[in-house]
């Protein structure tokens, strides 16, 4: 059966017949090409499709290809004014998703691969890419649900993007911090503190041993703390802590605002005050992010991105956009830091999914790894590396797990795990830093930190009372919930 009214198949029919007015299946319109071999310059998208009852999966895939490229609901003669074969996206492969369909609790789903010619996309524009691939098609009635799982971006297209303004290598050289994850915390409570009290939290945390403190995503310019006040007190705190420790310190000043003009104004004050980093929220939109990325490159500023809002469309497995796609887009758009999951914290994050996302942010080349949710080989064309940020419900006692899962090039953010320390904020920061350095030291010595982590931390606590207190306070905290966004393939895939 087809998604459209049943009509004679016109595929391969001569022009006059193919373009006769009326409604025909997408497959017959040229959006299904099982023999198509994608070109190196094609953008490829992998969709998870749940077709409506009775809709043939190939027709559903063709419909997705059609609605995300040239098609409309009926035949239009004006296609014949164009070299329309080139502009049509081509669905070229459909596979059933493992563990869906009859005998499972999930309706049958399919992975569909769709190739798009490079001509369809404007250079250097995530907005244009997104408007094509996820613009209209997600509301399309012939599919019950649709999720953009992954994308292969051709090198030719990547080279039109600036990428991260700073990148992991240059960030570390500027900070003069090597060989360990960076440490951060979000100032808490996130709302209500005056500028002066807010700066106190920043000063204590940085002096105690953190590298960064962070504004929360919803800190803008509210009645209790206008943005200039926040910036002035925050930079006093940063500079005091830097002088006290001899280290470079930073506070992510959130410049998210209602207009680009307001964001530029805030970023300019951050620069004038000597901040090394500014912050934006994902909700400002792709174009605003790219504008801030250019500003950051021009002004030698680290650009921190909080992924505020993403879970509304990334979390559910059947419908939306996978966060790995958002992460790839943000590497192209150009941010230096992006919140990308913790595995062990309070927020959603399956270890294999997170691994695939971290690799996409940090590696020069990622190979197809179905068990990590990566469906394509991806050459990153020397785009700089993005530093992932792990934040949300983590504490010093998990340091060995965090280091094992996430590696060295990550910012570990302990908000409650710093500010909620029973001996105070400085002690909380010191506990985290000591736990981190002790674990890195032990790992470098060849010890099995995954299994010996607790005793390594306990030994480090013998010369550090704040660490002892942290381990005692949070020893029973864990978040044992099933992730909703998991991979579909195990390490030895049977499909794909």
């Amino acid at each position, binding site marked *: 059966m087809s998604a459209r009214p049943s009509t004679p198949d016109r595929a391969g029919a001569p022009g006059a017949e193919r373009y006769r007015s009326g409604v025909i299946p997408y497959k017959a319109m040229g959006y299904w090409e099982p023999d198509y071999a994608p070109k190196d310059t094609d953008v490829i998208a992998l969709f998870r499709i749940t077709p409506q009852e009775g809709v043939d999966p190939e027709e559903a895939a063709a419909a997705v290809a059609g609605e995300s490229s040239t098609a409309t609901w009926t035949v239009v003669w004006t296609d014949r004014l164009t070299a329309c074969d080139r502009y049509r996206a081509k669905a070229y492969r459909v596979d059933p998703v493992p563990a869906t369909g009859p005998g499972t609790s999930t309706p049958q789903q399919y992975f569909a691969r769709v190739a798009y010619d490079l001509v369809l996309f404007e250079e250097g524009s995530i907005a244009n890419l997104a408007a094509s691939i996820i613009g209209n098609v997600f509301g399309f009635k012939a599919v019950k649900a649709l999720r953009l799982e992954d994308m292969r971006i051709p090198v030719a297209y990547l080279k039109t993007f600036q990428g991260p303004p700073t990148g992991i290598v240059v960030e570390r050289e500027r900070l*003069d911090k*090597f060989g360990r994850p960076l440490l951060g915390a979000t100032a808490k409570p996130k709302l209500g503190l005056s500028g002066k009290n807010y700066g106190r939290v920043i000063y204590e945390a940085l002096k105690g041993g953190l590298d960064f403190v962070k504004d929360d995503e919803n800190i803008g310019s509210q009645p209790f703390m206008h943005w200039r006040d926040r910036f002035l007190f925050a*930079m006093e705190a940063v500079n005091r802590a830097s*002088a006290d420790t001899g280290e470079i310190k930073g506070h992510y000043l959130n410049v998210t605002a209602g207009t680009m003009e307001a964001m530029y104004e805030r970023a300019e004050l951050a620069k004038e005050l*000597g901040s090394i980093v500014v912050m934006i929220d994902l909700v400002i939109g792709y174009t605003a992010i790219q504008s801030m990325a250019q500003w950051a490159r021009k002004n030698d500023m680290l650009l921190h991105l909080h992924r505020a809002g993403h879970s509304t469309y990334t979390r559910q497995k059947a419908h939306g956009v996978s966060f790995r796609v958002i992460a790839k887009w943000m590497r192209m758009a150009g941010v230096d830091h992006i919140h990308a999951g913790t595995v062990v914290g309070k927020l959603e994050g399956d270890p294999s999914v997170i691994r695939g996302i971290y690799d996409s942010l940090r590696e020069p080349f990622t190979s197809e790894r179905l068990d990590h949710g990566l469906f394509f080989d991806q050459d990153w064309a020397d785009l700089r590396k993005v530093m992932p940020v792990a934040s949300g419900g983590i504490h010093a006692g998990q340091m060995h797990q965090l280091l094992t899962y996430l590696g060295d090039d990550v910012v570990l953010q302990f908000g409650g795990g710093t500010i909620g320390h029973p001996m105070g904020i400085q002690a909380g920061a010191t506990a985290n830093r000591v736990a981190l350095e002790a674990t890195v030291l032990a790992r470098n010595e060849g010890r099995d930190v995954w299994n010996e982590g607790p005793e390594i931390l306990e030994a480090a606590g013998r010369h550090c009372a704040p660490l002892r207190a942290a381990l005692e306070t949070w020893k029973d905290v864990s978040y044992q919930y099933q992730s909703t966004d998991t991979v579909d393939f195990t390490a030895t895939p049977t499909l794909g």
Partner: protein
Amino acid sequence: MRLTQGTFSFLPDLSDAQIQRQLEHALSRGWALSIESTDDAHPRNVYWEMWGQPMFDTPDAGAVMRGVNACRQAHPGRYVKVNAFDSASGWETVRLSFIVQRPAEEPGFSLLRQEGPGRTQRYTVRGYAVERPAGRRYPETDR
């Protein structure tokens, strides 16, 4: 104050045996080790004095350790650190860097403020040690 630059400054000073194990780790990753010292540990002083060249062809942690000791002897009052440099594509930078000697007394840094318009401040971090000329900053011990 205790200068907390470097990967392990929040731990008690590393013993020579601990240092050697970190050197072995770096060599096992294919990184080249180098030794640097300074009497001006300002956070933005990225160019400490090199103790010879980075040891691209030294596969032996013991040899590097002898270099560390020679540098310590020559500059007993300076900060000394070991860097591990990775020349692999996509990195081409330091991957590990830690302090292996500090002066007996660490005077730290002052924060100078200059008032600007609109409550803004211009901040300058200045090391107390650099109030003396180079070479005479830690007079009891440096030569």
